[in-house]
């Protein structure tokens, strides 16, 4: 079976060893940057920065491009929409389609931005253990006064982990129930009124049962919703500060480009 996109690839590279908090902050900063810059130089610099980091991670380049592939249709659509529906100097005219030079420019920029976002996100997820990411988010949220909302950052992190872990199970359930009812002649298009309860009721019952079983299993493993530690040791090292510095320099450099 092929590795799903955006999955973690264990390794020991410098990029793998950075503190997840630094990496999350970096992705956020780079995300802001991609949408702040207006010129092609900046975009080129960001791409260059990505390739530098990617080669640092020691992971095969084509892995990152696989992260873009499923989104390519969407990106192409955005590009074409910009190309065709932006007013400006007309490049060629064909039927009612009039791609403009300005459209080409904004289209290219927008497409490049999405691609950059995806690439940086893929870099984070490929080089960071998923639970280290949630652990990092948990630590970053800890100073926030979440207590007022009635939850702790520990609960929030566990919730994030579990909902991600449970999505595939939910999809499987939907598939199973859909197949079972289709085999009994259910036709969603022809008779939605009968089909909705036929899908929703077994699904709800199943999900509730799953949740009960999960809650019991979690309790059996000592979960109390209160303070817990993490397998991932988070400590900002010298390297992390250096990385932060490099990032800041790059940030300013691109903004003034």
């Amino acid at each position, binding site marked *: *079976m*092929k590795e*799903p*996109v955006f999955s973690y690839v264990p390794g020991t590279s410098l990029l793998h060893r950075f503190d997840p908090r630094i990496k999350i902050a970096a992705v956020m900063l780079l995300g802001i940057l991609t949408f702040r810059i207006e010129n092609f130089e900046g975009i080129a610099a960001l791409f260059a920065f990505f390739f530098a980091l990617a080669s640092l991670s020691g992971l095969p380049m084509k892995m990152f491009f*696989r992260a873009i*592939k*499923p989104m390519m249709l969407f990106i192409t659509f955005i590009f074409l929409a910009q190309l065709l529906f932006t007013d400006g100097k007309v490049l060629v005219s064909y039927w009612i389609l009039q791609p403009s030079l300005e459209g080409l420019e904004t289209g290219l920029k927008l497409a490049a931005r999405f691609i950059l976002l995806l690439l940086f996100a893929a870099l984070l997820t490929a080089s960071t253990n998923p639970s280290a990411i949630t652990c990092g988010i948990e630590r970053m949220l800890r100073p926030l006064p979440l207590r007022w909302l009635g939850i702790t950052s520990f609960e929030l992190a566990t919730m994030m982990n579990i909902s991600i872990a449970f999505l595939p199970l939910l999809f499987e*359930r939907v598939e*199973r*129930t859909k*197949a*079972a*009812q*289709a*085999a*009994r*002649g*259910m*036709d969603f298009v022809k*008779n939605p009124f*009968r089909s909705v*309860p*036929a899908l*929703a*009721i*077994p699904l709800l*019952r*199943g999900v509730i*049962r799953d949740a009960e079983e999960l809650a019991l299993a979690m309790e059996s493993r000592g979960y109390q919703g209160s303070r817990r530690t993490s397998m991932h040791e988070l400590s900002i090292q010298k390297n992390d500060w250096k990385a932060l510095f490099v990032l800041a320099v790059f940030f300013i450099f691109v903004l003034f480009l």
Partner: protein
Amino acid sequence: MPIILENVSFSYSRKTPLETPALREISLRIEKGEFVGILGEKGAGKSTLTKLFNGLLRPEAGTVRIDGLDPSSKEAKRRIGMVFQQAADQLFCRTVYEEIAFGLLNFGYSKREAEERIYEAIDSVCLDQAALSRDPFSLSGGEMQRVALASALALRPDYLVLDEPITGLDPAGKKEILDTLRKIKNMGTAVITVTHNLKGFFPLLERVVLIKEGRITFQGSRESYLEKGCVPLPPIASMMKELRERGIPVNPAAFTVEDALEEILRVKSAFEKGSSLTATEGN
């Protein structure tokens, strides 16, 4: 006319980066009135195969024909009844009656016709008619599974396709389902079941299809399957095989306690008659 699969291949998430092949060049023929077991490990493609029978999935190559019909046609769907592992995944009505009626109404039967068929179906799964007014979720696991069977049988299918119908049930529930299936088969409906419970199903199976990594690696009678012995056999069958290997001439087709008892006693008296007879000569 039978179910015929010719060189059928199927992959999930086709033409996407997540494409995973599930079945490769499957050719299979299932006659009316047969009892066929589809065996194989988890992920071998057994469940995928059953979904091809009633058009839930369409093959990417090859053809599937149900009595010569396209499996996604309404008539073909009526001829194939399907029941999945967890009855709880499909039950949703307030009464068993409505539950069985669901399929019938979907296929456009009138209320009167449906009623007649509901009574017939509940009889054929050996449930009491009083059960019709009960809440399906108040039933035991075995009873719930029989309601699922009844809702498939109400359409009077020619083929009943089951996916792990007894997994997760307790011994009493397993026995209920196996007895019901024996009855259904005797009434002339073909039963095709995916299972890993060889012990429970073995006395019923007439033919075995073994799937491994999306391909059929064995197809034949259960006797020839026993001879081949490619997977762990149920305890009695395994013991009889051991006896044969040790030179005691017992019938390899014995796999129930009764059969085995008879065989052993027969051999015993043979040994007692001719005390000069040694084990190897007896073979």
